[in-house]
Structure formats: structure tokens, C-alpha cells
């Protein structure tokens, strides 16, 4: 049975910095290949965030260039060759700092969008 193809794909344009953070976070759970990362982000965000390959792969290569991830060719479970990306220690540090920043931004925006809630704190 053919799955219903959605006519309107909800593709949210992710800011470059945010995408980097999401990728690093995904890799925290272990090395993963590009397809796996995009599936993981899609799944974990409840089908809301669907990362374009045109953003994903440049981001991965950029992260590698900056030394936050490293790559290696390995076999998948189905015995296919794939390029696995892994978080480096520098990447871990970067992830922490980005998480902190993200929290900061979110709190700031929440302060504007829900003034009553933050006023009540």
C-alpha cells in the first residue's frame, strides 16, 4: 500500500548555527552516517524538522573542517559501506557552549512571548 504523499512538506529552514548544534547533539548518542543523522533529527523532532541534504552535507563537511567531528568509513548493519561521523572532544565542548547559548536565546524569546509567565517567576 502506497503511503500518502504529503502535498505540503513542512520544511522549516534551519539557521546554520542551529543545524550544527542539532547535528552535534545527534552525534552525542554515537557515531552516525549522514542518512542516519537526517532520519534521527526528523524522528526526534516529530517529523517537524526535515533537514535538506543540501544543508546537511555542507554542514557535516564544515563541522569536520573545524575539527568538531571526525569521519570514518565503516560497515553498516546491512553490510554496506557508509561514512560515519563521530563527535570529537572539541566537538563536545562546542556542543556544550551551543547548548548554553540556545538556552539563553530560548529564555530570552520566552520572556518576550510569555511575559506573564516570566513576570510570575
Amino acid at each position: 500500500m502506497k503511503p500518502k504523499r504529503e502535498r505540503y512538506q513542512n520544511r522549516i529552514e534551519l539557521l546554520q548555527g542551529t543545524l550544527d548544534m542539532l547535528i552535534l547533539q545527534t552525534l552525542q548518542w554515537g557515531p552516525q552516517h549522514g542518512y542516519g543523522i537526517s532520519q534521527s533529527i526528523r524522528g526526534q523532532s516529530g517529523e517537524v524538522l526535515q533537514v535538506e541534504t543540501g544543508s546537511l552535507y555542507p554542514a557535516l563537511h564544515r563541522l569536520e573542517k573545524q575539527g568538531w567531528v571526525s569521519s570514518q568509513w565503516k560497515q553498516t548493519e546491512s553490510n554496506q559501506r557508509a561514512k560515519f561521523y563521530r563527535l570529537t572532544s572539541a566537538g563536545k565542548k562546542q556542543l556544550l557552549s551551543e547548548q548554553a547559548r540556545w538556552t539563553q536565546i530560548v529564555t530570552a524569546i520566552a520572556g518576550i512571548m510569555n511575559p506573564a509567565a516570566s513576570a510570575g517567576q
Partner: protein
Amino acid sequence: MSLWEWLFHRRQRDEDLEEEVRSHLRMAARGHIEQGETAEQARVSAVREFGNVALVKEVTRDTWGWGWLEQLMRDVQFGLRMMAKNRGFTAVAVITLALGIGVNTALFSLLHDTTLELLPISHPQELVQLTWFQRGNLGSNFNWPDYRPLLEPQPALPGLFAYLSREATVRLGEASDRAHVQQVSGAYFSTLGLQGFVGRTLDAADDVPGAAAAAVLSYAYWQRRFALDRSVLGKTIYLENTPLTIVGVAPPRFHGLDRLSPPDITCALNAVPLPDGASYYVYLFTRLKPGLSLKEARDRVTARFHALLEGELKGERGWMGNIKLDVRSAGTGEYGGRLELGVPLGVLGILACIALLICCTNLASLLLARATARSREIAVRLALGAGRRRILRQLLTESLLLGMCGGCLGLVVGSGAHHLLTALLEISSAETFQFRLHLPLLAFTAGVSILTSIAFGLVPALRITRSGLQEVMRSGESAAARASLRPTRVFLVGQVAASVLLLTGATLFIRTLRNLEAVDAGFDRDHLLLMSIDPRESRYQGDRVTGLLDELMQRLPALPGVRSAALAYIPVFGDSATKNVWVQGNAGNGNSAVGFNIVGPNFFATNGIPLLMGREFSARDRAGAPLVAIVNEAFAREYFSGQNPLGQRFGDEGPKSAAKYEIIGVVKDARDTSLRFPPRPAIFQSLWQFSQYPPFVLHVQVAGDPQTMSASVRRSIQGIDSGLVVYGVRTMTEQINGTLHLERTFATLCALFGALALGLCCVGLYGITSYSVTRRTKEIGIRMALGAAPTEVVWFFLREILVLVGVGAMIGTPAAFASMRLFRGLLFGLSPSDPGSLLVALLMLAGVAAAACLLPARRATKIDPMVALRYE
């Protein structure tokens, strides 16, 4: 990724990325299969979800960081392919550029070596030189020993030294040689901070009168004369009878403080006596340590000079009183000699720049013509989404490639031009001015190439990329390109005028030279060898001189190939000596100067000057015998009109001496200083009666070509006495050419630049015609379809060119006449407005112009009307 990775591993990276994308698609397809699609459907869905595979790969590759380099490589490859495809155009462009850039490079090399290059000493910026200013004249040479008190006992400035240069005879063992000798004061080497390459240099202890004289050789002299033999240290050489011990060799790149006359041997100023009878000039230099400013130095020197004027130089105060001394920076060496070169170099520099400018405009117009053919390609590219800047970059890369090729070839042209220039400017110390590819030169050439590329490439590139696609597709050309070529036409007219001017000048000068060649000089031009010999310096004094010369004159004619030989005070042609005479029984004496020479026996026979009356000098006419003289025809005409001058008398020491000499012979007139002027009255005295005037000029008449005989004659003379110094060996032809230096220089310059201008005109005319043809292809097609003959089509374009050339000629002709008038003094046998020369120039121009435009015009006739009509 790093540059290293990019250079060597990028294909691997590309393949990696390819593999990565493939594996992603595989896994995505598998995911779809698991969702129930068929294998084929899964594959399609996976690809669709992925997006534009090529674009993703492209964007990912961009993150690797070397995208611009890759683009550059691709542009360069494309440019090279375009160049290979249009070989004719590329060849013309590269050659044009090479000529323009090459001439500039050669001039820069000369300019750099003579005026810009700092001396190879430590901290050359600190070096300063003393100069004097008197009555509107500026100089850097100081009378010696007048200015000695500035150096001793205490120098006016710390480290002040003096040096003088002269030619002298140097003897090592039995062999003698002429060398350039420099005599320096004690502080020379220490102030300059030079160590000996081998051995030591001179210091203050060597500069004491009576000290054992030491000599330091220059590296070039050591190489040339002693073949870098280190055992030369400690040997003794003789400088005019003074023994010098060789104590060291100067560093290799040091050519003295004046590169135009590099010294071979350096010795002390006070320890080696200077020959009498000449005046000497020194140059004064020192180093200003950081604490001392130029102004302070100037004040100190001036104060000391004034003190001297009160003290030791009191007697000279009359004429030295108004001298002002100055101290100027001299990091590039002694400036006086270079001033002579300044003006010619400047003029040549301007000419070279103009030539380069013309090259650029020509190439720009050529490129514009070619660009029209590519305007469709570019318009399509723009429509497909290429950025304007991207295309501009690619077009500029193509221009830069041309420029670089032109620059490389220009270096080759430059070395040839450099050779020519040093000969033209008569720079004799050519080995110190070699065309070497050092950094400033390469930087200059690269810079000029790049600037030129931008100059001729930018405007056409901008014009092409400005066009809109619709317009181009419709009419086959862009509005911008169609916009008038007026600037190009104006330039071309200017070039034609310049060509007319230069070619006329060249023709005039060449014909002048030929006229001068054809002049009957009155002596034998083709079989004479001249050389200077100086017995005085080679240990011969007094009577031994006469004995030596006698022997020489006896043995020389017996040598193989030598027909006759004679000595004289000055050469029969080329130098000039005059004196006043008083003729017995002639009123109005002593007012005009006559030429004179002091000659030995056989002089006139050797030189091929016919003896009309009486006899030549002989062994009879020695010191002690009655004073005799020979005169020429002009003298006889002037003072004895009609009468027999033999037996008449004249004198050269005032009216009372009118009976001093008896005239014993009359010779035919011969030109003496210049081929231009008719012979003037001249007298000849006997050498044996005045032998205290060495050096002598030996004239040798040879059978056959004097050029080939010169080495053997020289050897024979040294075989007679190896201590005899023979120098300045030259054939009569060379001697005559020496007096024609200016004319020959101008002829060469005009011819060269005329050829260059003509060549550039050719290129320009070709470009403009080619452009016309391309632009009007459709029109030609229509005309031919309607029945126009090919010749009519050719005439169509020829007419356009003829108009341009005609206008140029009309401007050029009066310009040529006007400027040639300035050089009237250099012409001979021609008037500045000589129509024949102008005609030759115009014919050359017309011929070249016709050839240049015939090629594209013929291309026009070959256009198939059907193709042309369809050519949108």
C-alpha cells in the same frame, strides 16, 4: 582541507563524496522499500527526496574552501584552449606585448643598475658624497692635491676618504697591460666596510708616503687576468715603475663607487706617485653615522673649508672663494657620471612607455573586434545564470594569460634590447651591466604585464558583458560593441602619423650615413689599422725612445701582411689639433688656426695621401737638423695662392718666428676631424724633431682586411719589444664610425622605433578591418547576393583604411618636416624636407597598410551569401 590535500588528494575527496551520496541514496531507498514500495519506486523516491544531487555535491565541495582556485584553474585551462584555437591572433598579441614589455624591461634594468641599485656595502643609505657649487655649476670632483687638507691631518668628517681614477700601464713580469687604476686614501675600505675576498684590503698604514705600496685587485680583474689564482697574493706588479705588492682581492659584487668606470687595481693615494703633466680630481665620500645629520655634516665641512681658505688655501682664494660645499646622499654611488646617461635614458624611457601604451590600445581594439564574435556565447551564458563577475573574471584571466606570455617573451626580447642599448649609449663597462633576472626586474616585468593585461583587457570585457541577450540574438551584435570605435580610429591616425615621422627620420639618417660613407676622405679608409703605443711608461726614457721607434719602424714593414707603417702625434683622422701660424711675406697672419700633426717618415704613403710636390720626412729630419714642414693643398691655396710653396717659410710662435720652418712638401687635402667638413689648411711637422710628445699613434697599412690582421700585427709589435704597451687597436673604419656616433645612434633609434610603430600600425589596421568585416557580414552577404564582385567588396574596406592612413599621413608629413628641421645639423647631403625620403616612408606605410587590411578583406570575399544572411 589544506592546500596540500587540495593539490594531491582532491580527486580522492571527490570520489569519497560521490560514494557518500550513493550510500545515502541506497539507505534511503531501503527505507522506502521497507515502507512497501517496489525497488524501482523506492529508488525514484530516494532521489527525489535527496534533491538535486549535483547541486548538493557542488555546495558541499564549496565548503572545502578552494573553490576559487578551482575556478581559476578552469579559467586558465579555458583561456589556454582559446589561445590555442586562435593561433594567429595569439601570436600577434604575444609578440606585440613582448616588444612593448621587453623594451621597458631592458630600460628598467639599465635604470636600476645605474641609478637605483644601492652599492653592495654595509648600510649604503649612510653613504654621502661631497659636492661643490660654483657660478651655477655643480660638480663632485675636487682638485687634488688642493683639497688634501680636508683629509689630513684630521678629516673634516669622520671616515672621510678620497679616491681618483685613471688609466695606467701595469706590468706583471714581462707582460704589460692597460688597466683602470684607482688610488684611494686610507679610510676607503674601512668606511665602506669591505673585507677582502682573499687577503686583506688597504688601510691607513698603506696610505703613508714612502710606505711599501700595496694593491688590491678587483674580483673581475682577478678573474680576467689571473683566472682566480690565489697564488697571485704577494706577487709584485709595476705601475709605471712603482712596484706594488698584491695583498688582496675585493669582494665579487663590488665594482667601485662608479659603476660606469669600475677599477681593476686599487692602491694608496699617497704611497704611489702620480705621473706629472696631468691634473687630477678626487671624489670625496664618507659615511654618516646615525647621530650625524646631513645639515650638520654640511656645516662642518663648510666651516673647515672656510678655515682652509684662511690658512693653507689662502693663495687660491681668488678663484676658490665663491665655492659652496654640500653633502649629499650617495647610496647608489658617484652620481656625476650617471648624469650623462640621465637624459638619453629618460628620453628612451618615455618612448618605451609610449610604445607600450600604443601596444595596449592596439590590443584592446583587436580584442574588441574578436569579442564581437563571442558576444552571442556570452549573452547565452549570462542568460543561463552565470554571474557577470564570473564571466568578467574569465575574460580577464584570458587577457592575463596573454599578458603573462607576452611578459615571458618580453624577458627574452629585453635581454636583446639591453645589449643594443648598452651599445647605443656607449656604456663601455658592459660586464658590470649585465641583464640579470633578479627580483626587482622580475617584479617589474610581472607588474607591467599585469597592468598591461588589465589595460587592454578590461574595457573590451566590460563592453561585452554589458549586452542584453535579446538584442544580441536579434541583431548579432551588441549595442555597446557597435558604439563607435572612434577612440581606436583616433589612436590609429596618431600611430600612422608617428610612423611617418619615424620612418622619414630613419630614411634621412640612413641616407646621411650612406652619403658620408661615399665621401672621398682623401686617405685610404679600408686598409688602415690604428693603435696607440707609449714607450715612455714602459721604462723607456730619452734617447732610448728614439732608438726603439727607429727599430720599430724598420721591422714593422717587414712583417707579413704589413705594407707600410708610420707614427704620428694624433691619428690622421678623428682627433683635432690646431695652432696659429705666421707665414713669411703674408699679410693678415696669425689670425686663423690651421690643423697640425707631428708625423714620422712615410706617413702620407702609409695613409694613402698622394704627395703632390716635394718629399716626405726622412731620417735626415732629426733633432738638430733644420726645421722642416709639409703643408696640404688648402694651406698652399690659402697662403701662396698660385705660387710654388716649396722653400717658403712660416713659424708658429708669433710674427717674429715666420722663418722657423721650411716647407719641403705639399700633399693632397684629406679630411681630418669629420667627413662632413671640407679639409682645412694643415701643416705637418717632423716627429723626429719633436719626440717629446708621446704617446704616439701608429698607423699601419695592411694588405687585406685590417680587422683580421689586427691581432697578428699587435702580436708582432709585442714580439719586437714585449715591454711596449700597445692599446686602443682599431681599424680606420671603426675610427670613422666613432666620429659618426650621433648620426648612427639616431639612425638606429629611428629605424627601430619606426619599425615598431609600423608593426603596431599593422596590428591596429588589421584589427579594425577585421572588426569591420565581422560586423558587416550580413551586409556583405546581401551585397554579394545582389551581384557585387569580390574586388568591390575588398575595395569597400580598403577605402576605409586608406582614409585613415591618408589622414595620418597628412598629419605626419608636416610633423616630420618640422622635427627634421631640428636635426638639420646632423644631416649631410640632404635637406630636412627631402621629398625622396618622405616618399619612401609613405610607400612603406602604404604597403604595410594594404597588406594588413587585405587579409581580413579577402576573408570578406569568401563569405558565402547564404551563410551570411542566415548569420543572425
